């Protein structure tokens, strides 16, 4: 199958799994911002995405995407090291137009995975996992009380620092990753290259700011957030 056997095919796997993850992150970032304004609304989203079959299915899909992206990152990097050979240049001079992120995608990716594990431990384990195993109050709050878990996590400055490092790595990864995936798909050229590049920076910045805003807001003034109350009924379930 050419997807696995050709270099462009393997890049396509990287590109499509990457874009899918970007779309997920975009949704997740938007969703998080709700917590700044309304505890009720945020927790309602949490219960909507609780341990329903569709949420579990989507989570499994996400896990598969991360796994595919991760495995191919290592396959590509391994093949590329081999293609490059063992002889290092004694003197190297990096041209200005080469972005730092583009040469460090694997390292950035590894930081992202470590952050992801921390994140799963802080939230998913106490929320979806707790519900699945039938101990919804395992983490000290109700499994659907995402708001309280946010408050708890970001009351700890160590977690805030780790999350900020994580988000910075993610930002760098995305500034290169987004335009790179469209380049890989072949939907780029003299004109669109610059457009995609600007879109990458703008998109990555907006998404990361959404996450950062929540982390920092809860680190600085946890008690004055989420006060808009009342039941929100987005659609009849």
């Amino acid at each position, binding site marked *: 199958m050419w997807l696995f056997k050709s*270099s*462009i095919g393997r890049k396509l796997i990287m590109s499509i799994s990457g874009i899918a993850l970007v779309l997920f992150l975009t949704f997740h970032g938007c969703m998080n911002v709700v917590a700044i304004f309304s505890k009720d609304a945020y927790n309602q989203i949490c219960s909507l995405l609780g341990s329903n079959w569709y949420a579990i299915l989507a989570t499994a899909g996400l896990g598969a995407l991360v796994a595919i992206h991760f495995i191919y990152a290592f396959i*590509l990097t391994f093949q590329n090291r081999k*293609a490059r*050979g063992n002889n290092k240049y004694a*003197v190297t001079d990096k041209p200005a137009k080469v972005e730092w992120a583009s040469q460090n995608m694997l390292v950035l990716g590894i930081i992202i995975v470590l952050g992801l594990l921390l994140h799963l431990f802080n939230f998913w384990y106490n929320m979806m996992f707790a519900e699945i195993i039938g101990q919804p109050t395992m983490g000290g709050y109700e499994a659907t009380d995402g708001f309280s878990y946010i408050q708890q996590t970001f009351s700890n400055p160590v977690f805030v620092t780790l999350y900020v490092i994580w988000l910075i790595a993610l930002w760098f990864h995305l500034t290169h990753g987004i335009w790179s995936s469209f380049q890989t798909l*072949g939907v780029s050229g003299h004109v669109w*290259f610059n457009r995609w590049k600007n879109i990458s920076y703008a998109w990555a910045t907006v998404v990361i700011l959404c996450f950062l805003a929540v982390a920092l807001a809860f680190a600085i003034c946890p008690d004055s957030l989420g006060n808009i109350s009342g039941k929100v009924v987005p659609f009849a379930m």
Partner: protein
Amino acid sequence: MAKNISFTIKYWKQNGPKDKGHFDSHQMKDIPDDTSFLEMLDILNEELIEEGKEPFVFDHDCREGICGMCSLYINGTPHGKTERGATTCQLYMRKFKDGDTITVEPWRSAGFPVIKDCMVDRSAFDKIIQAGGYTTVRTGAPQDANAILIPKQDADEAMDCASCIGCGACVAACKNGSAMLFVSSKVSQLALLPQGRPEAAKRAKAMVAKMDELGFGNCTNTRACEAVCPKCETIANIARLNREFIKAKLAD
């Protein structure tokens, strides 16, 4: 007015692909700065021969920037810091200063094994071209130049792609040892013209398959290649190759 400069040259010595290799260095004195880089190496070799040492091996042919044979990695940049759009043979000593140390290395990439010193085997590129970088269309007798209409923009773009001289600087600069800038330029020069379209899908598949078979890396869009290409090829070519290849595979 030319002025003279003196400098140290550190050059790579390696006896064949298996040898570990090492740097030798030599003091160059009073070299006029309108000497070309390759002329300077000729002077180096005469001095080495006079001293009874083995001359330094490097590749070159036309010495006028069109053949793509000269291939030296100078002070960390393939072809050195020429004005972009020029090869090693078009680099002049006026780009260096008195007292500099100039380091000369071969293209280092698994796809280009060292033959000796800074001469590397780039026949992999020929094999990629042989896999599909041509047209087999029977054109018959020459026809009127206007018989096939080609928009000026396409003709210009195809010409720009065709100006790739296969020097291999793109591979030398790439941390992934990828040959995508070369292959995409050679696919593009034909894909952009009506004469190249009938075999475009076949060509893209065959050339990419050969490139992969020869062990070149997977492009991760770092753009190191276009930054050093002496013919100013761009990664727009790579996007075009990706498009041609994916389309061809999906149509199978």
